[in-house]
């Protein structure tokens, strides 16, 4: 069974003048367990909105979104929040680390909303994941003292610490130089694969998109398959 299934999903927003703006239109998307999907699109094409809908941060205004076969439109706030925390890990373009908290505290932060043993052992779990992303020796550093690449690796560790089924990465290399971006992306793909989680990457970088098993293009709110792109970084 597919983990995520969007059928005819649309997202409209009401404008101040009363008109409707369609950001997403008739999106059909199915993502299976452990699959790596990239979605490419220009700025303003609706990439982030699609990611927010996928991550239960936003709701579609039309169509159906099934998560593990369960319709998400019936989810109430509390259950929705819990599912979001349990099923998804987010990696943002601007890292979005909590300022003035150490790398370990940042990684452990999602486990504050976990239950039972996961909550109680959050410190140890955070250090283990930081080790996996190669930042074991930087666990005590605050984000302000980490490089961009290191910050994004902390963000990846944070996205993985609750062992999510899907990692949603919004322009994960957008704030990094090419070399660092490539290594961060490789780490992200490898770490999610190691955990058996699906990875959905939203990017405008074709080289990043090429790392995925399947590439899709989002244009004017519509999602279409994309021809295979080269893994070579464009000159």
């Amino acid at each position, binding site marked *: 069974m597919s983990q995520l299934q969007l059928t005819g999903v649309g997202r409209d927003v009401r404008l101040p003048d009363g008109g409707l703006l369609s950001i997403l239109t008739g999106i059909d998307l199915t993502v299976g367990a452990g699959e790596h999907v990239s979605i490419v699109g220009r700025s303003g094409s609706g990439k*982030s*909105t699609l990611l*927010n809908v996928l*991550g239960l*941060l*936003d709701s579609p205004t039309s169509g159906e979104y099934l998560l593990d076969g369960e319709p998400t439109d019936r989810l109430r*706030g*509390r259950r929705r*929040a*819990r*599912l*979001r*925390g*349990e099923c*998804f890990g*987010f990696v*943002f373009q601007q890292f*979005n680390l*909590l*300022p*003035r*908290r150490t790398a370990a*505290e940042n990684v452990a*932060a*999602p486990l*504050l*909303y976990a*239950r*039972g043993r996961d*909550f*109680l052992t959050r410190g140890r779990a955070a250090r283990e994941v930081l080790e996996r992303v190669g930042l074991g020796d930087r666990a005590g550093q605050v984000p302000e003292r980490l490089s961009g690449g290191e910050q994004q690796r902390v963000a990846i560790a944070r996205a993985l610490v609750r062992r999510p089924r899907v990692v949603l990465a919004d322009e994960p290399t957008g704030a990094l130089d090419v070399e660092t971006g490539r290594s961060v992306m490789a780490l992200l793909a490898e770490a999610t694969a190691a955990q058996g989680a699906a990875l959905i990457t939203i990017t405008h970088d074709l080289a990043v998109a090429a790392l995925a098993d399947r590439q899709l293009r989002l244009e004017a709110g519509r999602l279409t398959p994309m021809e295979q792109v080269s893994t070579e970084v464009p000159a």
Partner: protein
Amino acid sequence: MIGLLGVFAEAWSEVRVHKARVVLSLVGVFLAVFAMTAVTALGLIVAQVQQEQAERSGGRAATIAISAYDPMTGMPADPQRWDTAVGELLGRYGVSEHATIGYGEGLFRLPGGTQSLQVMDVSPSYGPLHRIEPISGRWLREGDRTALSPSLVVNEYMLDMLGGGELTAPRTVVQGGPQPVTATIVGVVRDGYPQATVYRVDRSGMDAGATAPAGGFYGPPTLELWVPDDQADAVISAVQADLPLILPGIQVSAYRQDSPGLADSLDTLRLAVRGAGAVVLLLGGLGVFNVGMMAVRQRIREIGIRRSFGATSARVFGAIMLESVVATVLAGLAAVALAILVVDNLPLVDWFNNGVPIADEPGFPVQAAVEGLIAAAGVGALAGLLPALIAVRVKVIDAIRF
């Protein structure tokens, strides 16, 4: 349970990370709780001092003073008739707490020569009724009435007239007059008066020769009855009706001697003190509220990130609210601790009561401390309410993009 722990962990983490902001915002609450708690405690001490000062002169609530004299001559009733009448009156109404005081003058042979001093002939029960606590030695007791040497309790000024020093053992002083007697000073009181005070146990005229009136007239002795507050008026009426029947031809005066309005005045004082504390606390709370509002606007992005981790609205609300409460309770704890330290270590009785010890010195009022903490938590909850509501209404997507 884990959820609750999580809220606490989150709130504590916020307080820890934003130490400087939290500390700055809490200065007002700290000062307010300190002021409220300390002033409440001081208010209680001042009220106790005032109460004891009033009781020292007028007796405890309610003290009825009764005296009787011949309206033709102005002289006191015959002592034996008076004693009989008093015994009958006390028996009839079952008044167990009573005292007598009569004023006279005595000649004392002091190191500088013989001096005539005012003497108060009192029953041993006069001390407890008027909260008189010797600072050394003891107060008068029933056995003193039959002692061969009359017992005296004097103030420090009188002790100084006798050569000063401490009353480590009973000292004697010769009372002059036609039949001199050697009196024994059994206790010393501190009353702050710059003149001699001499209490002598009343002995029904045993030492009349030593206390021959030196030309002054001090009026009849006074009988004091300590009765329940709500029965005072009835007792006065009954005494005024019955005593003239027992003592025909004698004018009886009965009136309330303590300060009946004192309790109300002290309640007003306490209320005013607490009101002032509440206003100060409110101002401190406004400071926390202001900083909380500013902080939550700066933390919108962080709130959005936490929502992406699965934080529910209730959790975000609880964490922001608890952060405010945790912080103000910590400030309240520190303030109460400082208030206890200050109130317990300052010589407040010396300041408020001229060094005269108070009989029932109030300890640090636990109620004030508890109220201070509750007030701090309440201010924290109130100050955190609006920021928490704002945090809950934050749109996650906008917050992350913020």
